[in-house]
């Protein structure tokens, strides 16, 4: 049994793939050997001391920061109230515009109404504006929410 072999077994520690009697013989050699003895002692010190190294303290506001992020994940209030009100208003206005447009369309189709072309154009523009507002309102709200994150 050579010192190089024993040193390898010492460094392998609990993962040395040899039978117990072989390891016992190796450690008997180490305890009596001026080369392997200090290595065995140092190896034991490594095992003990690494396990006993002090824990570093976490930053004082870590818990608070984590819980704040978790709160933002779940909390619908993260989207500002003004944004939500604006989004709801746009949806309602869009729904009213759609209903008005539908009623006018039916009236024209069934000849109940014969609107002037500029009236039709005005209605079209207003409807288009309301439709656009409703379409982009959620995106605007999302952008503000992300900026606050």
């Amino acid at each position, binding site marked *: 049994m050579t010192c190089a072999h024993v040193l390898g077994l*010492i*460094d*392998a*520690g609990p*993962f040395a793939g040899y039978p117990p009697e072989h390891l016992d013989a190796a450690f008997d050699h180490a305890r009596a*050997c*001026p080369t392997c*003895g*200090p*290595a*065995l*002692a*140092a*190896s034991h*010190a*490594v*095992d003990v*001391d*690494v*396990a*006993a*190294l*002090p*824990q*570093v*303290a*976490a*930053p004082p506001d*870590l*818990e608070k*920061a*984590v*819980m704040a*992020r*978790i*709160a933002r*994940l*779940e909390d619908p209030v993260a989207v500002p109230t003004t944004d939500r009100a604006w989004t709801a208003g746009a949806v309602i206005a869009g729904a009213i515009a759609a209903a008005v447009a539908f009623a006018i369309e039916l009236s024209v189709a069934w000849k109940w109404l014969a609107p002037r072309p500029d009236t039709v154009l005005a209605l079209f523009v207003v409807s288009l504006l309301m439709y656009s507002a409703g379409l982009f309102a959620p995106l605007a709200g999302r952008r503000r929410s992300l900026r606050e994150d």
Partner: protein
Amino acid sequence: MSDADRDAVRAVKRGDREAFAGLVRAYQGRLFGLVLMMMRDRAAAEEVTQDAFVRAFTRLDMYDERRPFYPWIATIAVRLAQNELVARGRVIRREGAPLDAAPEPVVEGRGQAALSDLVDDERRRVLWKEVAALSSGERTSVLLYYRDEMPVGDIARALGVTAGTIKTLLFRARRRLRERLAAIGFGQEHSR
């Protein structure tokens, strides 16, 4: 898994998100220390530790309550830290190539200095600096195995390598640390 951890996890799953604060309190020091040793950058370690807790919260339904909580969240933290390190250009090599080809230079950052200050014994101070100077794979394996007492299989899963690779990393780390202690004279008295 401790009863307190299990109760906290179940409470969070029932919708009591404040119960998660107990888990954060219980493990933030261990987790932050681990990530700090991996990244050696206090600000980045804090960010990754936060990310790990938040990700654990959002994926708590994937957590197996029969297993201890710390290895699970440590795995999340280790992977996030690895991703961050890779993003920074510090490529951690995978199985098939050495995970730790060249030791990274020791960065005397605030985190490390603070840790060294905690170690009053000279031998342990040397050991701490040597642990900090190990390559990323060795350092992480040593901390998870010795200090966090994680089984080799769990460490392998966390690092995305085989158990054999972890044993090799631990072997190299033990040899280096042992040689360093011997170099400062430790153990000589045992041979006399």
